[in-house]
């Protein structure tokens, strides 16, 4: 296969991911992108191209937070000087072919299905295989089409959307808000994860309720807890918090709350103000 040469960019950092590397059937647009330097999102994706991507390919999921903290922290009231350790942001490593297990076969199927429906392969920014689970990082505009493909294509058949939820990777991380979809194919007994990374200033993406009606409450919860706006949702209102609540509680910058408690003569601060080791 010509995958090996085509799927790897000149510095070797470009991911050789799933549908992108099974791209022959898809025609010339992928080849053109590769020639253009390996950055997958291009012409077809005007708003998002470039945002959150590194210029020479590689991972699109770019954390910018650096490790800091440990000793030498002052002003925390902790006389040991220990505290406030912040781990560097985690970068999920792009997977290389072969992925192993059913992942390769599945990625081929998905590539073919995308080609059939004329969905650009750039819709999938990165593939990660970790701990026996496969994750597709998806361009946000494409999530609805992709879900419809995954549900309807006879070779994919993801009948059930198990879960939609958000993850906030915390301050200083570029595109810190992620929306995570867990899909289940009962026909093939496969589970996959789709993940969309969003900017905190523009947390919008299309709703998948018209494809998976079960996503209704999941998306409402994600809006409620993370402030992600799902365009096209039939009634995007708060679901767990009261309607007039301010803020989105599961964002990392939203305080946990709590009051100091006296226990055996000592005052114990609320959990979010206690000494933290990470």
């Amino acid at each position, binding site marked *: 296969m010509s995958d090996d040469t085509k799927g790897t960019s000149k510095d070797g950092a470009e991911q050789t991911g799933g549908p992108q590397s099974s791209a022959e059937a898809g025609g010339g647009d992928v080849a053109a992108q590769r020639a253009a330097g390996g950055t997958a999102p291009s012409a077809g994706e005007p708003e998002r191209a470039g945002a959150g991507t590194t210029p020479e390919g590689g991972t699109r999921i770019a954390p910018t937070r650096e490790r800091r903290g440990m000793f030498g922290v002052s002003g925390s009231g902790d006389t040991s000087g220990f505290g406030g350790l912040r781990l560097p942001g985690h970068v999920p490593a792009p997977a290389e072919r072969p992925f192993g297990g059913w992942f390769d076969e599945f990625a081929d199927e998905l590539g073919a299905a995308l080609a059939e429906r004329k969905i650009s392969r750039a819709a999938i920014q990165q593939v990660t295989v970790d*701990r026996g689970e496969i994750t597709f990082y998806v361009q946000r505009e494409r999530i609805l089409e992709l879900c419809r493909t995954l549900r309807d294509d006879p070779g994919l058949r993801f009948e059930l959307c198990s879960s939609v939820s958000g993850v906030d*990777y915390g301050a200083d991380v570029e595109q810190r808000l992620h929306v*995570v979809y867990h899909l289940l194919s*009962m026909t093939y007994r496969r589970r996959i994860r789709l993940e969309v990374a969003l900017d905190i200033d523009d947390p919008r993406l299309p709703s998948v309720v018209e494809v998976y009606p079960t996503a209704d409450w999941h998306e409402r919860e994600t809006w409620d807890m993370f402030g992600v706006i799902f365009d096209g949702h039939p009634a995007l209102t708060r679901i767990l*918090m009261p309607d007039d609540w301010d803020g989105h509680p599961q964002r990392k910058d939203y305080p946990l709350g709590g009051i100091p408690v006296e226990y055996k003569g000592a005052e114990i601060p609320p959990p979010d103000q206690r000494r933290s080791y990470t």
Partner: protein
Amino acid sequence: MTDIRDDAPVDAYAPERETTEGTIYTVTGGDWDTVGDGEHDDRIVINMGPQHPSTHGVLRLVLELEGETVQQARSVIGYLHTGIEKNCEYRNWTQGVTFVTRADYLAPIFNEVAYCLAVEKLLGAEVPRRATVARVLLMELNRIGSHLVCLATGGMELGALTGMTAGFREREEGLHLLEFLTGLRMNHAYVRPGGLAQDFPEGWAEKVTEYIAVMRSRLPDYDKLLTGQPIWRQRLEKVGYLPVDGCLALGATGPILRSAGLPWDQRKVEPYCGYEEYDFEVPTATEADCYARYRLRVAEMHESLKIMEQAVEKMEPGPVMVADRKIAWPAQLSVGSDGMGNTLEHVRKIMGQSMESLIHHFKLVTEGFRVPPGQVYVPVESPRGELGYHLVSDGGTRPVRVHVRDPSFVNLQTMPAMSEGGMVADVIASVASIDPVMGGVDR
């Protein structure tokens, strides 16, 4: 109800106000016949709950009725939101167990096991066999208890009071056994990442065998009491119909999905905790109504007893916690005169002999262990369906994200599909057959 007098006097219990949709009456008491002007339709919006004996906890239903027919039904949730997911982000990985066990409080062991399986998957830790078998035993015991509450409260909501007293009586047997095995009736925090908090106490096998014998003798009573009873059948048959395509679209799993004919059970299709070694059936039905769901739950309890019996035989002596001292707490706990705590031998060792042990113990308990970065999703088959834990780690001693895919939350979305177009009384039957536990719905 349809006969509304034109000359109705102004009622202190039913103040009226004008809106763009016409006159709205807020009825707080008195007789409906004295309210209204007779010119408008008979559409009534009934607010049921959140404090209502037949809404299964703090579930609020907003029903739009025409006569006794439900035109629209919506559920309002969030009254029991306790921020479990957020709280877990401020505790170490081991402490997370004490939070998640409180989510679906009728199936605490399932929450603990699913959470721990997810943490162990992140860690890449292999749990000792004895702990895994014990987890299976506890889960099935818990499943019986949970199904009994479903039958009991469901029976109570439909007026079958004996079903309630019998169900809670049998559940008490299970709770006694759970208390004996884990130390607590609920909110156990017994399953820990890496294994179990401690081994089963002396004499556990006899107690479990005794429980199985008692349940074997009592479960058939439910067939006598409810299964063939004409009123019970009339209340449940052909009520709350949801076929398999509706189930999949709305994400329903567990007994709801199996009552529609799809034998989808995580224990069979994606075995975890060694369920592939156990001999049991997955009961299914094709009627897709409340009665089918009731029968499935009864049948599942019998299957759970079978699994428990096999688990007792499979239990071999051995450790119940991983050997890795970076994960396992250094002391197995024991019950002393002042409650549960570290064993005397361990206290003697850390205080008298080994400073290193003391430091290690202190670090592990206060700081916790580090979990390599990444994310996992682990589903298990809870009594209500697919209970999934999505955990994200950044390599620290605390989770970045703990997301609970709770089956009650998802299944509750099927309530309108099951009850719209039916009678008000059937809403109760439908909700009872969904068996939502608000602790899990709201988390």
